């Protein structure tokens, strides 16, 4: 089974990558940002109290002792305590993960489902108006900062039209979340049979997901277009036409599957970023996800939280590319027989 073997080998590779990332973060955070004891100590504190706090934060030991302790804790699955929340970082992360995943999934699915067909339309109408239109729109989608698109959408749909709610997070202020099951509000509300809350959650999700979708759509459509254009000029497409296949069959069955490989790579990269916490997007929409958590950890020199987040994000990145390679094998038989 070459596929299973490849997956195993790649999973094994995560270990050195994770170790490298942890080490860099550990030392970079401490060396660069210095001692954060002051941040967590009242200014009028005595030196004794200050030392106590420092001890409690685990900052009193020499650096390499802290590092060894952190690694051994990590091996036992303990991510350490967040200075800010006072909770275990593992718990903090799994608390915030569903918010990030929910937004990321909905936004990406929208972006891919819209982007791929747009790219195909542009490619088969190459150098005609649909092509120019798609290229123009996607150029804008790539050239604009995501946070600006988000703000403009808020201005249009919330401030001006009033169709959608403002950027206050996953539920309107004052609405209690449904009983926690999966952490995905859309699923939890549906399971609880709470149609009203489902609607509220969906409306809150609409704008951030649209923003994310638009910024995903642009590169997806462009890459789809480029690789479709190339595949359309290939010998095998000429054969398919010569054998009498119709245009739609040629485009969507014979061509698209060949053209999908670069798109899959792109989506893998996007997924790595999106699920790693779209920091800016979450901060604009008050979305309580991992990106906000990471931002806060940086601002407050919350070492354990920062390290935990970086481990999670880099693992996710590696896994996303593993998924890409597995998909490659499923799409392209040439990858299966090296």
């Amino acid at each position, binding site marked *: 089974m070459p596929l299973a073997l490849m997956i195993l080998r790649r999973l094994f590779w995560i270990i050195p990558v994770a170790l490298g990332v942890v080490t860099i973060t550990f030392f970079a955070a401490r060396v660069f940002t210095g001692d954060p004891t002051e941040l967590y100590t009242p200014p009028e504190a005595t030196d004794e109290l200050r030392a106590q706090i420092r001890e409690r934060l685990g900052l009193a030991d020499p650096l390499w002792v802290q590092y060894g302790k952190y690694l051994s804790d990590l091996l036992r699955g303990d991510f350490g305590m967040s200075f800010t929340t006072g909770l275990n970082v593992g718990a903090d992360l799994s608390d915030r993960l569903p918010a990030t995943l929910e937004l990321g999934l909905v936004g990406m699915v929208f972006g891919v489902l819209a982007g791929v067909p747009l790219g195909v339309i542009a490619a088969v109408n190459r150098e005609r108006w649909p092509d120019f239109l798609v290229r123009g729109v996607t150029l804008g989608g790539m050239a604009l900062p995501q946070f600006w698109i988000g703000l403009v959408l808020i201005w249009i749909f919330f401030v001006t039209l009033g169709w959608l709610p403002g950027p206050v997070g996953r539920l309107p202020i004052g609405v209690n979340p449904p009983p926690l099951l999966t952490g995905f509000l859309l699923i939890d509300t549906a399971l609880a049979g709470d149609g009203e809350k489902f609607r509220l959650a969906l409306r809150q999700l609409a704008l951030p997901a649209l923003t994310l979708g638009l910024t995903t759509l642009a590169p997806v459509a462009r890459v789809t277009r480029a690789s479709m254009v190339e595949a359309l000029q290939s*010998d095998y497409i000429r054969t398919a036409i*010569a*054998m*009498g*296949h*119709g245009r739609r069959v040629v485009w969507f069955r014979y061509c698209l599957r*060949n053209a999908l490989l670069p798109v899959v790579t792109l989506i893998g990269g996007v997924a790595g970023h999106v699920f790693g916490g779209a920091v800016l997007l979450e901060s604009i929409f008050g979305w309580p996800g991992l990106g906000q958590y990471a931002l806060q950890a940086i601002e407050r020199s919350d070492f354990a939280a920062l390290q935990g987040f970086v481990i999670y994000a880099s693992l996710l990145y590696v896994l996303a590319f593993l998924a890409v390679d597995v998909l490659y094998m499923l799409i*392209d*038989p040439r990858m299966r*027989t090296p």
Partner: protein
Amino acid sequence: MSDVLLSVENFSGAFRAADGRLTPVLHDVNFALRTGAITAVVGETGSGKSLTALSILGIQPATFVRTSGRILFEGRDLLTLGATALRAIRGRRISMVFQDARAAMNPVFTVGQQLAEVFRLQHGGSRDAAMAKAIDALRRVSIPEPERRARQYPHEFSGGMAQRAMIAMAALICRPTLLILDEPTTGLDVTIQSEIMELIVELGRSAGLTACLITHDLGVVAETCDAVVVMNAGRVVETGTAEAIFTAPQHAYTRKLLAASLLVPA
């Protein structure tokens, strides 16, 4: 002549550059393919022979435009047909074997799938029946273990095997009236080349196929073809029976070509 299946008449064409300028590449090409015969169109790289062949099926490069002439197939001008009418002819009536069959087959579908899908497109029927036909076609072009081979992808085929599969698709699955072969043996080993040519001749004879063989290899032509069209720089310089061309070439270019192929002393 009543037994002419397809005729190319005064066909001229040019490539259109991005700025709209035309560069003429085909000049008044004239030749006819007779029913049941194997006609060779011979010429070196760039003589316009492939371009003419692709134009018959309307799959020429997008930048190529016809400037005059027509291509008559059973009394209809192929160059003026609409998309639907052209599709009804492609594969069913006129089919084509391409150079470099490994690249001409879709890399992400099995060879069997590709043959079966063409069969269903042209003759209908169930998936299973079509796959059975595909395997049968592979067997008839002497591909060993056709059941296993049908489940393989083009990249798992050797060049010669892929060309056999391509011929199975174009000749046996499509069952066309006219089969065009565009440099079918280029890039293959010499021994494989002759095997492929034997296969083509055999299929042509047994199925009563009219074939048009595009090639630059005169050696191939001498043994297999009935008639020969010699092209050079976008023009037809000489046409005639194979015997006439080989024994008494009229045009200087034909003689040069013959000399270069080392078959006949100049």
